[in-house]
């Protein structure tokens, strides 16, 4: 399908409604288990911010991260097939603008409840959310909402932080 800027605009509008990081550390619900099963054969819950830092800093997660980065390049190429680079930048930049304060403030709020005041770690969380939302909107605008990036972005918006995929296991905070 051609790049649909209206889908990205809808993602921008929805950022304010997200429950960013509100569920981190909590047990998975049945609905979440179904959503996670579509992303990886096995999902493991991460229970604390400290553990989340260790998993995110595990170099064994790099192959899956790099595969996703390659997929972003492919999605952008498809978007650019029917959209001028300046226009794509303008449409996608709206996600960055909208999320700039929202993601970091949400991460700070949730971390503070766990008595975590680490400015670096909350920035890492905000960066992860921004990246996931950007990729999710791009994928939805090019391929539709069933793309794995769109599913990952929905997990973030529901309050989770999918941290890393190592082999067949997805670690989720």
């Amino acid at each position, binding site marked *: 399908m051609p790049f649909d800027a209206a889908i990205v605009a809808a993602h921008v509008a929805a950022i304010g409604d997200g429950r960013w990081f509100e569920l981190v550390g909590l047990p998975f619900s049945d609905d979440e288990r179904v959503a996670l099963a579509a992303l990886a054969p096995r999902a493991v819950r991460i229970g604390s911010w400290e553990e989340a830092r260790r998993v995110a800093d595990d*170099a064994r997660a*790099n192959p899956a991260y790099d595969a996703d980065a390659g997929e972003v390049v492919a999605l952008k190429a498809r978007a650019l097939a029917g959209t001028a680079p300046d226009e794509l930048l303008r449409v996608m930049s709206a996600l960055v603008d909208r999320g700039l304060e929202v993601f970091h403030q949400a991460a700070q709020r949730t971390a503070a409840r766990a008595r975590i005041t680490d400015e670096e770690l909350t920035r890492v969380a905000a*960066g992860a959310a921004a990246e996931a939302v950007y990729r999710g909107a791009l994928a939805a605008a090019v391929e539709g909402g069933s793309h794995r990036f769109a599913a990952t972005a929905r997990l973030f918006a529901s309050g989770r932080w999918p941290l890393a995929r190592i082999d067949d296991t997805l670690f989720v905070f």
Partner: protein
Amino acid sequence: MSTASIEIKTVAELANAPAEYREAAEKLVRSHAINELYGAQVFDEPAVQFAPTPYWKWLTCRVAMEEYGHHQRFYRLGQKMGIPDDHMIPGRTEKRPLSIFEFEMKSWAEFCVIKLLADMAEIIQVEDLMECTFVPLRVEAAKTMPEEKFHAGFGVKACTELCKTEAGRIEVQSAIDALFPGMPAFFGKSNSKNNATFRKWGLKQRTNEAMREDYIERARGIVAKLGLKLPAAA
């Protein structure tokens, strides 16, 4: 040299300021809008691919966003001042970004050194703006400062991590040797007419030479703490 008793509290008041003051304030805002965006585009965004783990990739992603956010702050101020949008976007304006952005970054160590040394230079510039007579610019500078300090701290931490191994230490020293010679130019020419005008109106407090000397001293200190050395400046 600054003898300015003038203080412009709002963008609306700027319309009644002397033409030379208005032009000087516009030059400063344009420069910050252009260079904050260009830096994010040529250093921070590309550095995500070099970062060693998702943790550092996401942190770099966030830093890129914050640099972009700094651009947005100066850009919006510029819009309120009546500066045309295209005059504040690199590639759309004839004004070139700072020469430091011509540095061709090729590794994670180089990015970490850019945060260590280039963001420290930015801090010195922003410190000066925090005493600026154009209050809206002073306010934006103050909002920007905590994030600039975090970015420079990121550089210190990341370089410290790299220096824990001999190979990493060599890589960081090599990056310092490559980047630093271009850094003093970040502060502009000596005896700069623009800087003289900025100081005349209290938009800047210090000469380019004074900021450059301050920078070199601070850079020498921070690099020494890593057990490394500065090369000669270009």
